[in-house]
């Protein structure tokens, strides 16, 4: 087998949650049961969509403005920033980072969200940006509220912001959630608890950051993300 065709594993299953985690009830009928098949790296997985500034609008990163109709959204304004790194610690440029979230009252704009909490006419809760040359991204938004779900009796999701990252090729893809420090709901949340390793879980908790915080304006949270994927040496050896 050539270098290209040797199986190249990306995900670390000591860190990643399993498909089947029965406390999260919806996994029971949706979890694949067969073992995953190793995938030799081909050009199909070493390429992927390339995004540029033309894909991003000027307000896409500012959720307090990108859906404003007649004022500011309600809630606690926050800045969420961080760096996307590869597993060797290098910043990953050009990553499409998309986020979505509930409003300050814990309500999503999605039509299927039936939670009895108010919508905010000035907030949709969706944003997108690209990481810069060093892998940094930055959003301005509102701190989301906790919301109830029906997984089990009295189930509440901890406040979270959903993140979707599309990196440099098909192998660099992550959908995850960012949590807030000190949230008492984390220990009851089967989605968070589904991550097998306590240290890995804690990497999804942002940290309050005074340096990011802007006086008289907004609290800052820092959230760094390590994006698994075919590593860079793999590309360099390719040519």
């Amino acid at each position, binding site marked *: 087998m050539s270098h290209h065709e040797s199986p190249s*594993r*990306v*995900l670390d299953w000591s860190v*990643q*949650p*399993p*498909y089947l*985690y029965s406390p*999260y009830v*919806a*996994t*029971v*009928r*949706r*979890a*694949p049961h*067969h073992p*995953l*098949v190793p*995938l030799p790296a*081909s*050009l*199909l*997985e070493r*390429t992927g*969509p*390339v995004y540029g500034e033309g894909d991003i609008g000027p307000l896409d990163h500012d959720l307090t403005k990108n859906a404003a109709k007649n004022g500011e959204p309600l809630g606690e304004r926050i800045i969420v920033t961080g760096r996307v790194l590869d*597993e*060797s*610690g290098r910043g990953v440029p050009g990553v499409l980072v*998309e*986020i*979505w979230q509930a409003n300050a009252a814990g309500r*999503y*704009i999605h039509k299927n*969200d039936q939670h009895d909490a108010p919508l905010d006419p000035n907030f*949709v809760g*969706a944003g997108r940006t690209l990481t810069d040359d060093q892998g940094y991204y930055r959003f301005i938004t509102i701190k989301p509220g906790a919301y109830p779900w029906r997984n089990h009796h009295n189930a509440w999701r901890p406040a979270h912001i*959903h993140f*979707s990252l599309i990196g440099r*090729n*098909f*192998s660099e*893809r*992550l*959908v*995850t*959630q960012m949590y807030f420090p000190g949230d008492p709901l984390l220990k009851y949340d089967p*989605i968070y608890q*589904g*991550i097998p*390793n306590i*240290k*890995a*879980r804690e*990497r999804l908790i942002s940290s309050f950051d005074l340096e990011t915080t802007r006086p008289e304006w907004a609290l800052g949270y820092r959230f760094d993300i*390590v994006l*698994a994927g075919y590593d860079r040496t793999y*590309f360099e050896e*390719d040519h």
Partner: protein
Amino acid sequence: MRPQSPSQTVGPFFAFALVREGGNVLVNEKTQGEHILLRGQVLDGDAQPVDDALVEIWQADAQGRFRHPADPNYALADPHFRGFGRSGTASGGFWFRTIKPGPVPPSPVPCIAVRVFARGMLIHAVSRIYFSDHDNLQDPLFASLDPERRGTLVAERQLTPAGVVYHWDIRLQGPRETVFFDL
């Protein structure tokens, strides 16, 4: 080495952010190649359609080229084809307007890379779509798969008055569970 960040479910409420108008239409009238409709359902262990899944595809252009610098033929790739699509399943299934890709050497047959996300999946699943009108056993990966299971990767070609349709379902579990890869 830095430890990788763990995945979490996409949840039920992603569509307003991730499923954009036209995100499942990969072609315009100038895109080269055979234009096709690729459609199917995501099915759970009870064979019920999953209406809150997100399906992403990535593929080469009609000549087997990618608009990505890892492809040595990058500069020759079809400028009217990016190759990435996203579809939700809220209407009962997913669909993409795309083209049949060219084969990507060394494989002599075409295929499409797929990722599926859903509420109830703490982490995505990766699969591939092959095409029923090709000799897929010529593809070393396809040929290496369990003969009882590899048929789950084959999209069935149908000729309809509206054009060429390929039908391919994703079965998350059950007797005909789709082959998923470790990526």
